[in-house]
């Protein structure tokens, strides 16, 4: 066998390896720019529709809503209402997350715990949180306790379901590696299962957040005023009674904006610094 050594290929003429893309292309590649454009188009269509129907009582336009929104911000009513809602939501969400974590930890530790979790989620996950509101009112009366009860219900089951599914998807060798280093019990759950299942847990947290937010607003619509102060849902309901439809729209816009902000600021950031950085989720 004879070997013929080839000389190294001649170096290619100097050509920049990476050309910057044109500005328009870079803008179009940004999801934020694309979404902002879509939003602008939707607002334009809405305004056109409102002007065409020409009935402020039924459908105030984008401009009228924006005005009511800014008014609400300036006189401090919207921020107060939103603050009340968000604070209540955070408490209920936190309690729900803790309960879900406890239940799933129990489920990975014992077989009976697993049966309990699958039974309870099968029973209660399809049950709308709002359907429990009459019962909650009976037990806890008019007040934030009733709202917390339905909030926990709306977060707990979807999050427990997603977390447990995530735990079950943790690769066997990763489990064995963890046990190999002497990790057991809660340390094993916290140091192996939770980070390994984080994509599922994050998506469960997102779903739980959306469920909790819509449950809270709906519950506030039903009775809302807690010790004389209602949240955003109450704001919407009250203004509808007084036929300030533009304020109803402003309240709804506030609900949507807070939802968008949490989704994009909190959850996107969480995903970026964890699962996307680790290459476990695109």
């Amino acid at each position: 066998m004879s070997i013929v050594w080839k000389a190294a290929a001649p170096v290619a003429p100097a050509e920049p390896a990476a050309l910057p893309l044109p500005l328009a292309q870079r803008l179009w590649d940004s999801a934020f720019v694309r979404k902002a454009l879509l939003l602008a188009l939707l607002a334009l269509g809405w305004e056109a529709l409102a002007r065409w129907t020409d009935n402020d009582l039924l459908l105030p336009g984008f401009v009228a809503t924006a005005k009511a929104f800014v008014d609400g911000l300036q006189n401090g009513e919207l921020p107060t209402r939103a603050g009340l809602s968000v604070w209540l939501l955070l408490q209920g969400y936190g309690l729900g997350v803790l309960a879900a974590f406890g239940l799933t930890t129990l489920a990975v530790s014992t077989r009976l715990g697993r049966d309990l979790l699958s039974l309870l989620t099968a029973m209660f996950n399809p049950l709308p949180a709002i359907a429990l509101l009459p019962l909650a009112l009976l037990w806890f009366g008019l007040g934030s306790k009733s709202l917390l009860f339905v909030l926990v219900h709306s977060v707990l089951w979807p999050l427990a379901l997603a977390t447990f599914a995530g735990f079950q998807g943790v690769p066997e060798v990763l489990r064995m590696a963890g046990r190999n280093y002497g990790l057991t019990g809660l340390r094993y759950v916290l140091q192996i299962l939770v980070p390994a299942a984080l994509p599922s847990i994050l998506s469960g947290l997102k779903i739980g957040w959306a469920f909790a937010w819509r449950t809270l607003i709906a519950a506030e619509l039903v009775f809302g005023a807690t010790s004389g102060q209602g949240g955003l849902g109450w704001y919407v309901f009250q203004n509808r009674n007084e036929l300030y439809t533009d304020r109803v729209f402003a309240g709804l816009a506030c609900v949507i904006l807070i939802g968008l902000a949490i989704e994009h600021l909190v959850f996107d950031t969480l995903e970026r610094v964890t699962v996307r950085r680790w290459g476990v989720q695109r």
Partner: protein
Amino acid sequence: MPLLDVHALTLDYVAERRRVRATDQVSFSLDDGERLVLLGPSGCGKSSLLKAVAGFVKPSGGRILLDGEGVDGPGPDRIVVFQEYDQLPPWKTVRENVAFPLLASRRAAKAEAFARADAAIEQVGLGRFAEAYPHTLSGGMKQRVAIARALAMRPRVLLMDEPFAALDALTRRRMQEELLALAQEVGFSLLFVTHSIEEALVVGHRIVLLSAHPGRVRAEFDSRAFGLGGAGSSSFQAAVQQIHRLLFDEAPEGLAA
């Protein structure tokens, strides 16, 4: 006294409501500083044996003694290097991965754990990638991280379950060379599982040959004479042939264990 003494080990596993015997009365021992290879076709229970030594599988019979003490349950004195890349937590950088067992087992404080991790990472030649996440590494590099992680722990015995089986032939060859160089440098005791005859001859001081269904010890070989350098020699080829015959042909009377 041998470092690791496995005596008459019988392992069963349950599949589709039936109890299947994986290994039957398997005995072998490993001395301090020795490299022992379990070699056999698939279904001979060699991985089950390794998992039993690691403490993941409870034996139905026989005993496993490490330094004269019975093994029950997994522990950081026996670190396993698996074949699958999943064994590295993706949320930890190379450096954190290597320090992880030291911290998780509370064998070392943070500063010492990272110092030992850095040293082990240098030993496997990954110094430049200490801050990289596993998903950015190639298969060979991931296995190097797993080996560094095991080395940093300085376990009583290293357990390797076909660690190079998922790699391409060239990388596998280089990893075998590096493993032998590390053995020279560090001097560890190794229990190594493989289905490759060549790899067994290159890596091991001794080879335990297993037959399948259920796994039984068929023969034991001394393979100190073979290293990577002798892979092409005629005596190496003769040994490969001999083992091949033992594995796949009817064994002559008296050789079967």
